[in-house]
């Protein structure tokens, strides 16, 4: 059961977010740091801090890098789970899906970050991409 003080803590946390997140982009690292701050400052449970932060980002049309990377991960799993290969179109679809700004948003996921995550995914899951005309290999 959350007492009335929780509401005060939530308001204070949201004020803190408004001050911290000026550029409408919350990186995964920043997300973790803000959640940890809420825990330290107001003893807010992690799950509640994460939900509040995600909702705040949505309301302010700010990019939630953590959530978008999770979406990219889900897409890559869906595209590669049967053949362990990521073809050009799948790669393009996955990247566009999260890097293209969505309605109401000024930008999408940082393309460099998305590319880095994609390569990491391929290495961890032994997913091959096309190299040259006929060759497939893990990047």
């Amino acid at each position, binding site marked *: 059961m*959350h007492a009335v003080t929780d509401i005060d803590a939530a308001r204070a946390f949201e004020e803190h977010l408004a001050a911290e997140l000026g550029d409408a982009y919350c990186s995964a690292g920043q997300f973790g740091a803000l959640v940890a701050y809420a825990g330290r400052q107001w003893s807010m449970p992690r799950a*509640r801090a994460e939900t509040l932060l995600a909702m705040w980002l949505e309301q302010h049309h700010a990019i939630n890098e953590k959530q978008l990377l999770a979406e990219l991960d889900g897409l890559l799993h*869906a595209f590669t789970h049967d053949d362990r290969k990521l073809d050009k179109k799948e790669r393009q679809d996955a990247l566009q899906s999260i890097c293209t700004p969505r309605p109401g948003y000024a930008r999408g996921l940082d393309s460099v970050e998305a590319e880095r995550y994609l390569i990491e995914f391929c290495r961890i899951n032994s997913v091959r991409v096309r190299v040259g005309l006929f060759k497939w290999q893990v990047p």
Partner: protein
Amino acid sequence: MNGNDQEWLQNRIAAAVADDFYLDRGEEQRIKEESAARGITTRDCELVLREQLEAHAAVSERLLIAELDRLLHQFTDRDKKLDPKEERDALSKVVTKAPGKKAGLDPRVAEEYVATFCKANGARRSTDTPKWLVPAAVAAGVAVLAIGAMLMRKDNAPAPQAAQAAPAVHQVAAGVRLNDNDKAEIDDQLRRAQQYVEAAQYTDPPEKSAKACLDQIKQIDPEGVYRGSEVKALSSRIVTHYLALADGSAAAKDMQGAEKWLARARLLRSDRELILEKERALGLARAER
């Protein structure tokens, strides 16, 4: 939001997802309406909803459909085509359980949404080959072969033999053959119709009712070759139910109500004699029938 409201909302959501870890759109809408009626703000409701879904590893149908919609736009906005792999990928993404979740999107809901999306956005599905095309092509092929054989026989044999071949061709070309897909569709529609009957959704809402399913079956198998008796029995059951309701309305001197129930019974296009008899008994028979 006070403590009591929060506890009520948590229990309400827990009750909705405890059995199948799945919060469908209707249920979510009802929870939000009930919360609003208790004076809980939308923001607080959304916050508790998300927390509870996370706590129970449950999924929200609304959010999964939004994700499916995004993927379908991604796949079709450029070329207005949804090829089988794209469709499989999109469905797989939302239907498969995500890590940390105990359910995915209901495949039936997903399939219906894809069909609706393609219609609404003018996207062509490669899997949308008309059902009649394959049997029609086979029938046409058989007819061509038979005609060829008939012409060859005509050259080599007396006329009566060629005359015997013609009826066989006609029978193959004109006969309605149900393939395995048709039978599976009939099984599926019949099962859904039975579920709708159990839920008392006989004719309303029009698109999600037993009548809609029975109409689909009649389109596939107009002669009732496959499971025809079960289809007929289900139609009769609904008609009987409406006739009983008409009786009840008539007993309460509500003849308009009785007429309404009889009109619904007529929609099933089954047991006409029984309906006419009831109309006569209630004094509602019309001259044109």
